């Protein structure tokens, strides 16, 4: 139960409050923190960052800067946001949650089934934090405790596809993934294949990426096999290991094929 509530006036204030209360948790939209309060344990001390961080989405040169407090609905509605990220945000099927949930909060929550994180990784997004700018993966590896000010999207990849798969429209996903391809100046390929739902956090399938980059992975069946070999999902209420391995393999391979088609 939340006992102490602080409202930060700006980012510096938020960081100072966090220093003063090490147990405190940043409260953005609250869709994650306040969820199921009667069952789970909500944090005791929260620092409300609603007024402290920007929520604007702006274009600076080729880069797009998204304020961490931008809601997922604002991401969907913005004309500046690449369509794959809009689509990924719209995968969260509930409008009222998109209205409340912030993009910073989605990364901060670091849920393994996040719809946003794979797409941000595939877009090579970086995060602005008090410790400087860092890659999304880097942030997640560090245990995601630092305050995110903003998200920066560099120049868009040449092709990108975000995918999700769930039993019903609103059921928790069994696939949340994104694939992007960039052609370097020398025409060589840079691939990013990233997926959630199969481990405790979002993964990158480096071997699959290398296979695509080196051209050894050409056919859909081979891609499916390679993906299946590089993931180890656990069976749970959403499905068996066999199902999760199969569905991630075929859906992500399909995304790769679509990306390749877009590229050619």
């Amino acid at each position: 139960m939340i006992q102490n509530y602080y409202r930060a006036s700006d980012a510096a204030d938020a960081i100072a409050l966090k220093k003063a209360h090490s147990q405190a948790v940043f409260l953005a939209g609250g869709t994650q923190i306040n969820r199921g309060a009667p069952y789970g344990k909500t944090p005791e001390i929260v620092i409300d960052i609603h007024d402290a961080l920007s929520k604007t989405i702006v274009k600076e040169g080729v880069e797009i800067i998204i304020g961490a407090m931008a809601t997922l609905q604002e991401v969907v509605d913005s004309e500046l946001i690449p369509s794959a990220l809009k689509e990924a945000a719209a995968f969260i099927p509930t409008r009222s949650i998109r209205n409340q949930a912030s993009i910073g909060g989605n990364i901060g929550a670091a849920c393994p089934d996040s719809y946003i994180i794979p797409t941000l990784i595939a877009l090579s997004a970086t995060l602005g934090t008090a410790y400087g700018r860092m890659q999304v993966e880097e942030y997640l590896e560090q245990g995601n405790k630092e305050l995110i000010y903003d998200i920066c999207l560099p120049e868009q990849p040449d092709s990108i596809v975000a995918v999700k798969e769930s039993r019903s429209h609103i059921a928790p996903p069994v696939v949340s993934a994104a694939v992007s391809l960039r052609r370097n100046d020398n025409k060589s390929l840079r691939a990013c294949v990233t997926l959630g739902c199969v481990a405790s956090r979002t993964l990158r399938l480096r071997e699959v990426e290398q296979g695509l980059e080196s051209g050894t992975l050409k056919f859909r069946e081979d891609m499916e096999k390679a993906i299946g070999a590089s993931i180890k999902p656990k069976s749970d209420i959403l499905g068996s290991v066999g199902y999760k391995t199969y569905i991630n393999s075929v859906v992500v391979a399909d995304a790769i094929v679509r990306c390749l088609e877009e590229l050619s």
Partner: protein
Amino acid sequence: MIINLILDGRERTIEARCGLSAQNLLKQLGVNSVRNSDDGFGFAGSDTILLDGKIVGANLMIAAQLDGREVKTVNSLRKGRALSTVQEAMIEACCVQSGYNAPAAALMIHDLIERIDSPSRADVQDALSGLFNRATGYEQFFEAVRIAVAKKKNQAYSPAKTGSFGGTSRYVGKSYRKIDATKLVAGERAFVEDRVEEDACILKVLRSPHAHANIKSIDTSAAEALPGVVAVFTHKNVPHKPYGQAGQGFPEPSPYDRVLLDTKIRHHGDRVAAVLAEDEETAIRGCELIKVEYELLPVIMDWDDAKAEGAALVHDGPIIYVNGAPENLKELNREANPKETPVVYQFPIGGNPRKNISSYVEGGIGDVEKGFEEADVILDKTYQTTQIQCTPLELHTTYVKPEGDRLTIHASTQVPYHLRRIVAGQLGVSENKIRVIKERVGGGYGSKQDILLDELAAWAAHTSARPVFHQYTRREEFISSSTRKPMRVRVKLGATREGKFTAMQMDVESNQGAYGAHTLTVPMNGVSKSLPLFLCDNACFTVTSYYSNIPPTGAYQGYGAPKVNYALQVAVKELAEKLNIEHYEFVEKNRVRKGEVLEILRCLGEGREGKPESVDSCGLDEALARGSKLINWNKKEKSTHPDIKIGKGLCIIQQGSGLPGIDQANCTVKMLGDGSFVVQSGGADLGSGLDTVSAKMVAEVLKTDIDSVAVQSGDTDAAPFDTGAYASSGTYFSGGAARNAAQLLSRMILKEAAVILKTSPNKLQLEFPGKVVGEAGEVSYAQLAWQTQGGEGSGQLVATASFTTKKSSFPYGAHFAQVAVNTLTGRVRIQKYYALQDCGTPINPGYAKGQIYGGVLKSIGHAMYEELLLDEDGCCLNTDLRSYGVPMIGDVPDDFKAELVEVNDPYGPFGAKSIAEISVNGAAPTLANAIHDACGIWLRKWPFSPENVLRALGKI
């Protein structure tokens, strides 16, 4: 902290705990229409508000987040008494059923049409994406938006009414606004939780973490010592009087096999103890402080565990019979544990708890063995269904208030009179000491036919003399509500090469769970509402229900029929394929028709002797013909994608209209001083519009304006007895009682008018609006009331009548679907779903359609997505709506149609039959058959999830 906000245009300041949920804060500010359906899981949307102009869920926010912000609730939509355009549109589109989250829907649609001038279907789906609504099936919300948009452009716009039935009747068969819709869509106080007063205590139940255990010791001292705890209840201080929670007519066919709090635990979530405290937090803390030592017992999960040699017994106590004890009873009880709660049968239903069998019945007609011998082709397959939650939006809730030596129970129930009887029995008081007021019910679907919490709350109120509020959490709904029983159905069919049935056999095994509610009647009804759909001289069945340690099961809309009919209808298609006969044709060759006598019903009497019934109205001819045309049955649709296969399926369905010879409904109609009327109906309106049906029937008979008919229903002090809202009895029985009372009153009116006009009653007639006319002149109801109620009058005109019948009026229907199966992912998209149903004369066509949409989408959910998952120890793994998998607006078929087939039933009031319950009987077989047509797999097990489809396709 001090919170300042602008609430519905007014600046408000309130001191509150910062961590309080925003929904609770709004409640403290007097807003009741922002409700809780899922304890802040962000799923159901009953808590919708507009925050700084954006739709959000108040349960996912804390009070502090509202500080300095602008909040709008549904109160901001209404101007004085006038409803907003959106609210009016929702009423006109008939999508205000239980109405629990109608205010939330109104805010979402309001937001939508403010944002988008002409919303598309996808825009509507997006706008209502956060609204869980079990009752309506969502389809009529699309119409509500269309009407709202048209009204926004032109205030005078009035939509075309939904169909016109019932010949020249003024109200019957014509669309009319549901009489409680205004208050529901406006968010007025209408539900149990709205009646709770400041001084109410809160009751919380400590539930078992184990599925099967004995309580070795229980220490409540720390809980009792906690300041604010009023009382702690365990098996030590409650009555030890076996009872059953099934709200059925007395004597019930369900055994009495539980006590309020027991020493034995029979399912995960079973009651262990209860704490009554001054506030919720203390009650929860009190439960946490109770120390319990358990002795774990082997867990029985299903029929196979239950019948295994040496299986643990779920009910090891003595077996008692009130009537008809079997000869071997003594023998059966020889090894019973006398300390355990007994199982009391009112009369024999074939149960043998010593073998974990809670009930058993068999029956048949003709010579089945010979029938199979004569068959050219035999099909023998087994089908299985899962445990399904009712998931009403309004959690199970009760508020019990001691008043002198009486208790008033504000209940959310389908059965106010059974509730009164069961509570009185547990308290050891006579029924006159208990008054049950059925409030508006935010969805029941069967789970509110059982008395799940009122008896315990009543005991707490009775002993503490304090008002007691008791409300389930959503998690409790999952572990301790009553659910649809899992079943395993073996179907054996024999037919000649020409496609005529020679023999039909069904063996139904039902997983009853921990207690015996509806143990016999649900699976038996499954047989009696499916087998008679086909004509065959040789048919037989067995029904065996097993006690187990899964969460309790009970009644659920359809009452067994959705499962057994699924098995039968898929088997029929399987047999048709074996015979190489087209499915539609095969159904046509064998199906029931008007004029047939259903011999098989002789052996399906719900615990009593049955009798053959004749089919005196049947709309199947038209339903099948219209449905096949609508879906273009003979045309094979082509897919444009290699992985996606398209197929079509159909099935036929049947239900009853109440229980002839068992049910009874009563109704009183009173003429008031100005010639208007109050109808006091025993019927329990669950949101389906039963009160409106009663009002229509009374207005129709009395030829008066429907606005001058008010309905008060479900108050056991005020209205006469009614068995309750179950077994599809509402329109037929409760409506029938209203019609009968009005007819009796009309005769009284004629008699009194004849005295005034000095003529004979048979020279007079009633004439709209509200007068009696004849050659001798005319007299208005107002004059009549003044005459009869004056000092020299004969007394207020009041008529009470009952409705009973020996006749069955079976509603019928045909469902058709077209699906697209993605053979790569296993996902099934329902492209078309058409439900064509015969409900006799549809009394309120718009709401009749609403019932169909709601029923169909529920059963689509049951067949495709929903699954209550238990681990090997019998503990529930998914206790929230999202992971359980209820369908939302995004799951609605792309093209969804409910069509009414009018036939005039000779027995129902104004030719009406039932409509709602039958609607859940079709989706599972229709979809399974369509999926087979698309990609060749047979789905003999729910749910048709992507994983199960892929498994059947051999992909995993």
